[in-house]
């Protein structure tokens, strides 16, 4: 199993959450909202490329909109092996977090 970087993990989770609307700009917005950090398009695109090369993601061209200058969106979807690795990751992460009780720091 190939280890994912944290950003790759985030990107995959974002795609899962966005379902059919997971294309570059949307992923960027979603992550920026949750993480509160304004990422560049390239910063999202690089992990997308890598994940697709690894076979965890697949992509197809979706519909075009006027705002895009009439160009199609590239929609990303998690593949079966992508799903497997996410499940695996969830297990590992939960195992690692299991002994951390959580504090109220307020």
């Amino acid at each position, binding site marked *: 199993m190939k280890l994912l970087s944290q950003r790759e993990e985030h990107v995959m989770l974002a795609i899962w959450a966005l379902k059919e609307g997971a294309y570059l700009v949307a992923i960027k917005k979603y992550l920026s909202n949750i993480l509160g950090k304004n990422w560049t398009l390239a910063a999202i695109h690089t992990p997308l490329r890598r994940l697709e090369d690894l076979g965890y993601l697949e992509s197809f061209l979706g519909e075009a909109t006027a705002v895009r200058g009439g160009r*199609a969106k590239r929609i990303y979807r998690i593949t079966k092996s992508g799903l497997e690795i996410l499940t695996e990751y969830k297990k590992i992460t939960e195992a690692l977090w299991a002994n951390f009780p959580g504090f109220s720091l307020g």
Partner: protein
Amino acid sequence: MKWKTETPPRSAEFLLRILLPEREKHDLLGDYAEYYREISDRQGRFIAGFWYGMQIVIIIPKTIWNSTKWSLVMIRNYLKIVLRNIIRHKIYYSLNILGLGLDMAFLIFTLIFTSLQFGFDGFHENADHIFSVVKVNRAANNTQVHSAILPFPMLPAMIEDFPEIENGTRYIPVGRKIVRANDKILYEDQIRYVDPSFLSMFSFKMIKGNPSTSLSEPFSAVISREAAIKYFGNANPIGKTLSIDNQTDVIVHGILDEPPEYSSIHYNILVSFSTISSQSPEIENWETEKCMVMLQLNNKNSREIFEKKLPVFVSKHYSADNNYLKQLYLHPLTDFHLNSMHIDSFLNCQLPTACYIFYAISFVLLIIACFNFVNLATAKSITRMREIGIRAVVGAKRQQLISQFLSESIIVSLLSVPAAIIIYEMFLLPYFAAIIGVPKDLYSLVNNSFVFSKIILTSILLGVLAGFYPAFTSSKLKVCEVLKNNSRHGTGGTRIRKVLIVSQFVASIIAIVMTFMFREQREYLLNMDLGYDRENVIVLNTSSRMNSGYDIFRGQLLKYENIVSVSASSGLASRWNPEDQVIPEGRDKNEAVTMNTYGVNTDFIESLKLQVLNGRGFSRNFQDENSFLINEKAATALEWEDPIGKTLRIGEREGTIVGVVKDFNIKELFWDIIPTVLFIESVNLNYFYIRVLDRENTATINQIRASWEECFPDYPFVHSWLVDEFTEQNGAIYGIQGIFALIGFITGFYSLFGIIGLSIYSVLRRSKEIGIRKVFGASSARILRTFYTEYFVLFGLSCIIAFPITHFFTEKFLALAWASTTDIKLEVFAFVYLLLLVIVSLSVLFQTLKAANTNPVDTLKYE
């Protein structure tokens, strides 16, 4: 339509489109556009535009990395394919590389030759601010004469008047002198009188002695290393005495290195100028002009200031009504060699024509090399159709196919560089050294490393040029047709290739015919009737100081049976071209005729067997001191019904015409015969002529030597045969002949190569046709004939096209070089055509024969 204004700027989008990877180009552009709009909604168009621009900047390094990485991978693949191809088709590629190598070797020579010619005299440290002073004189008929020979006091006067002068020297090349050192007596042509600053102005290397003092005293000399060995052998020459013309004794104070090959200034013995000033009363005289004046200015920009002040200088030192000197100007040292033909007898200058001719030849050869490359590459591509097809099928774009072919041709032409270097060093350089006498080490690549970058650049350029056409045609093919093995391809290309082959043949015919025509011209020149008899004449080098013993010497020689006639002249027949203005009786200065004026003694006419047509020759029975003989041309030019008895004036000399001789030519043969006058010279006689009956009689030379030693014990005995001098003088044509032979060889090589390529191609293309013909009963001979018809038509066409071009060029070229030329001989054409025909037939025989003898079963089994 708000959104429309908020799309990214078009030019930026265009840039991004180029930079983005092909695969995701469009959706990424969409993503960028969408985000651009968002920013511009939130923060305004300016920020959005800035952001968009930044994206482009960010993406550039990545794009560059990607494209180079992938093209590197592909180039490695192309390289591999090329190497495999080379190994598989050894003969094809090695011939190709060899051909290109030959051309490049010629280019190497051209580059070195021209750089030496254009860089002549450039080795002097101060080269860019050394000048020679040149005067412009008014001559007859309102013409101007440029001359660098100036009066002695010019230099001191200039140094006084011009603060810009840093150094200056006078330079007097004197004629042949007799130099004696201890027991050795030799003739010396290269004695120069110079001022002491000569040694510091010019960068000749001083081996022994002090450059600042060696020439400051009168009667001191600095000699070249060669001269030191010539006169003193291994002994130390410093402090030894050299006696010039048995008159002036100078003491050697230093040794100077030989001037380099590419120096306008040559010397064997440099004598201090003060030697002259201590002897000669002319030193303050502005009327006698004997020396060149060379100046070193403080920097090269002073030239303009200097020349502006020259008219003032002229009016100060020359009276206003002087009717000859018009102006003075500075002539830069770097122009001495190639840009001084307009100046009267200026050092050893020449026209830059040779450089341009070499450039032109190299250029033409490279073009032909390109033709050849194109020819062969197209012929070869027929066997590579499948490879191209497969590449196209697996996704090679046309652009990639083109770059494959281009990189292949570049690789092959780069491989020709080492071949060129080997060919140049091993063959071309020794060849040129033999035919035109270039010094080997000077022209060796070791000393001319600047050539490497140039030839590598040229070879890449050549590769691109030559690979262009085949790359485009081959990549244009339709994949399915290629893979179906449909061999209709390449028919369009054949026409172009035939044109190329014909032009190669034409070029080689021109070069080869010219080579043979130069041979003819040489024969013609050497056997030409020049109006005098050059056989059986011995020439002795003499000195004008020997007049007193001449009559006794002549008297002694004429006693011998074998010796017919003895005479003397001031120049050497076969390379003697003195010109002067001759004013005929009753006409004024402006009607002067330019004539060759030969100073000879009484028996010259008899010794050289000049024919007297009218009147009489010079004779001892008359008082002939003031008699002239003229030639037929002069008789015509002077327009007198009967020139005999009329008077002429040449400078100070005035005399009466006593006879007319038949036209004769004792000049270098590129000069035509012009009106000529012969006068009796009694003082300045430098050559003796002795006509003998039988050249083979060796006793004669010894008899002459014995008399010489008796009459002129202090003078060296140097003899030669007039006819040998003549042959040597006019043998330079060997060099030109050799160069054209080389060009003929290279172009001939190419055309043969081209026709062999064509034969391979057409045999392949027509293999099925041959099979069918054989099945229907055609004999091998019949098939051979069909093939040969094609080649012979091409060859015949080339012959027809080449004929007028060659005829024209040869005629022009010969007329340019020699005053008198042989007729263009049709036999030469016939001979060259026949020779080429035989070679062509033989060279295509192998391929064609193989095709004609194939079993039709082999070629038709798939039908």
